[in-house]
C-alpha cells in the first residue's frame, strides 16, 4: 500500500496573522522582553500547529517539523560535550546556511535533544510520528574535526552520541526513526564506513529505521543499500529524477520512499502526473512511501501547506479513499 510522509522540517513562520511567530519571539528573547520558558511554550504551540496541518492534510506518517532546530546537526552538537559552533557554511546547493560544528574535545552525549518534541508531536497526533536524526556519517561530514584527527574514532563517538538519542526516542515511544545522510551520496567510497557506524547506532534496538538521502544522486550508493540495517530507504526523486529508478531497482530488502513532491520550488505538481508515478510504483512494489523531496522549510508556509495537502490528497485518492 502507498503511504504518505514528509521528510523532516517545516516552515516555522505562519501565514495566518495572529498565529505565534517564532521569528518575533526570538527577537523578543534577544531584547529580554520574554524569558526562555515563554519561548519554549511558543515552540510547543507551533509544533502543535505543524502537527495539526499535517493531520488535516491527510499525511500518514508525520514529523514534528523540527521547529526548534536550525538544521539537522547543530541541535545535537550544541547540546553535547566536545563541540563549538562556528562560521556560516552553505547548506548543500541551497541559498541557506548553517553554522558548522567544530569538534574541539571528546564528544559525549549529555541529554536527549529530539525526544521532547517527538513526545509532544506524538501526543498531539494520536498516531505514529517519525523522529529524524542525522546519520553519523553526515554528522561527521557536516562538522569540522579539530581534535580527533582520526576518522574511525570520531565516527564511533558520533555513533555513540546518536545511539543515546535513539535509545531516548525508543523509550519515548518512537516507532519510526529516520537518519538523514545527505553527504554520503557525494562520498560513495565511504559507504562501508557509513554503514558500519549507522548499524552500530541501531543494533539491538526496536523501531522501524529509515535512511534518507536528498539533493544528490544515489546512483553510486544504491547497489549497496543492503549494507544498512534499516527498513526504509528514502530518496529525493525531484532534484535527481533518476533516483526513482535507482530505488525501484535496488531497494530489494527495504521499503522505498519516493520523494516526488518538490519541496524546493513553489510550483505545484499536477495531480495526474503524480498519479502516473504512483501507478508505476505500485505496479512494481506492494509497499512504498511517497514523500516530499526534502524538508519543507525551503518554502514559505502557504506553499508548504499546499504541498502537503497535495501529497496527502493524491495518495489517499490513489488508495481509493
Amino acid at each position, binding site marked *: 500500500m502507498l503511504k504518505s510522509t514528509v521528510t523532516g522540517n517545516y516552515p516555522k513562520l505562519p501565514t495566518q496573522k495572529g498565529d505565534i511567530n517564532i521569528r518575533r519571539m526570538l527577537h523578543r528573547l534577544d531584547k529580554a522582553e520574554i524569558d526562555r520558558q515563554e519561548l519554549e511554550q511558543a515552540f510547543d504551540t507551533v509544533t502543535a500547529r505543524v502537527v495539526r496541518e499535517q493531520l488535516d492534510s491527510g499525511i500518514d506518517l508525520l514529523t514534528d517539523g523540527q521547529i526548534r532546530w*536550525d538544521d539537522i546537526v547543530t541541535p545535537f552538537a550544541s547540546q553535547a560535550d566536545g563541540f563549538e559552533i562556528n562560521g556560516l557554511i552553505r547548506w548543500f*546547493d541551497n541559498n541557506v546556511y548553517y553554522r558548522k560544528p567544530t569538534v574541539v574535545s571528546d564528544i559525549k552525549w549529555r541529554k536527549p535533544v529530539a525526544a521532547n518534541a517527538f513526545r509532544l508531536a506524538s501526543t498531539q497526533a494520536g498516531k505514529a510520528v517519525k523522529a529524524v536524526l542525522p546519520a553519523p556519517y553526515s554528522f561527521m561530514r557536516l562538522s569540522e574535526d579539530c581534535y580527533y584527527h582520526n576518522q574511525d574514532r570520531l565516527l564511533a563517538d558520533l555513533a555513540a552520541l546518536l545511539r543515546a538519542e535513539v535509545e531516548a526516542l525508543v523509550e519515548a515511544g518512537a516507532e519510526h526513526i529516520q537518519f538523514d545522510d545527505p553527504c554520503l551520496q557525494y562520498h560513495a567510497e565511504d559507504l562501508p564506513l557509513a554503514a558500519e557506524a549507522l548499524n552500530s547506532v541501531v543494533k539491538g534496538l526496536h523501531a522501524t529505521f529509515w535512511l534518507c538521502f536528498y539533493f544528490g544522486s544515489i546512483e553510486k550508493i544504491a547497489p549497496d543499500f543492503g549494507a544498512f540495517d534499516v527498513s526504509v530507504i528514502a530518496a529525493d526523486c525531484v532534484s535527481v529524477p533518476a533516483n526513482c529508478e535507482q530505488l525501484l531497482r535496488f531497494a530489494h530488502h527495504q521499503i522505498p520512499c519516493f520523494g516526488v513532491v518538490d519541496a524546493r520550488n513553489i510550483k505545484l505538481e499536477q495531480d495526474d502526473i503524480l498519479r502516473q508515478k504512483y501507478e508505476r510504483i505500485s505496479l512494481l512494489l506492494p509497499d512504498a512511501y511517497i514523500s516530499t523531496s526534502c524538508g519543507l522549510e525551503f518554502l514559505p508556509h502557504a506553499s508548504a501547506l499546499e504541498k502537503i495537502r497535495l501529497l496527502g490528497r493524491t495518495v489517499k485518492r490513489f488508495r481509493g479513499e
Partner: protein
Amino acid sequence: MLDTTTVGSFPKPDYLQKARTQHSAGKLSDMGLHELELQATREIIRQQEEVGLDILVHGEMERGDMTTYFAEKLVGMGISDLVRSYGNRYYRKPIVADALQRPAPMTIETFKYAQSLTDKPVKGMLTGPYTMCDWSFNTHYETRREVVLAFARLLHDEVRDLQSAGAKYIQIDEPAISTRPEELPLAIEAMAIVTEGIRAKTISHICYGDFRTIYPLILELPVDQLDLEFANSGYVNLDIFRTPRFTKEIAFGVLDIHNHRIETVEEIVSGIKKGIDVFGVEKMTIDPDCGLKTRTTEESFAKLRNMVAAVRQVKSELGLH
C-alpha cells in the same frame, strides 16, 4: 595596486530601518522613503571618504535584499512570503512567474546620484544572472538554463546603461556560482552575455562556497576581477589558488563580516601578505569578505579603519607610496 573598496552593502541607519517598516505598513509615502534613502546614501559616501577607501559603493540603502530588489523592478517576477536563510534570518524569495523583461533601468539613477557626491569612483552594483536564477523560485520557464539566460540578456542592458552613465567599475555579484560546480559553464556562458562589449572594469563577487570545486574553471568567467572571501576561512583556502596560476585581478577579502570582532591591523597586514604571496601585489584590491549589512555601522567602520591602516602599512613596507 592594493586599492581599498567594499563588496557593496552597508548597514542601514536606524531611521531608515524604521522608515522602511513604516513604508511597508503604508504609513510613509514612496517619496518620503526615497528622501531618507538619499540621505543615508549621502552619509555612507561621506563615511567611506572619511575612512579613506579608494573605490566607493553607494551602500544599497534602497535594497532590502540583493535579489528581491531586482525582482521588484522586473516584469515577470513576484515575491514570496518569508523563507529562512539561516538562524533567525528570513528573506522574501523572488519568483520567476512569467517571461522576464526589464521595463526600465534599475540602478542608474542611484548610481548617478552616488557618483555625483564624490570624486572617487563609485561601483555600479548588480546581481548576476546565475544567482538571480538560483535564488528565485521558478514557475514559468521549463529549465534553469532558460531562466539564467533570460536574466543575462536583461542584465546586459543594465550593464550597458551603467557604463553609459559613467561607471568605471561594474560589479556583477554571483555568490551562488559555487553552489553547483556542474553548472559553472552555464554561469560563464551567461556572464559572457552580460559583459559582452563592456569596457568598464567588471568584477564578480563570489562567497560561501567551496572554491576547490570551481577552480580553475572560474578563471574563464568573463570579468576582469574576482572578489573572493578569505578571512572567514582563516586564509586556509588561499592554497587552492596557487596552482594553476591565478590569471585575473583579485579583490581579496580580509574582514570576516559574520563576526562582531574587529580584526586588528596586524592580523589584516598578515592576511594581505599571505595574499600577495599567492596573487602578487599588482593584481590585488583589498576589501571585506562580503557586504557589511549584517554588521552595525560602528563595527563596519571600525573594521574598515583597520583595513585601510593595514593597507597603508603594507604599502609603506613595500615602498608603494
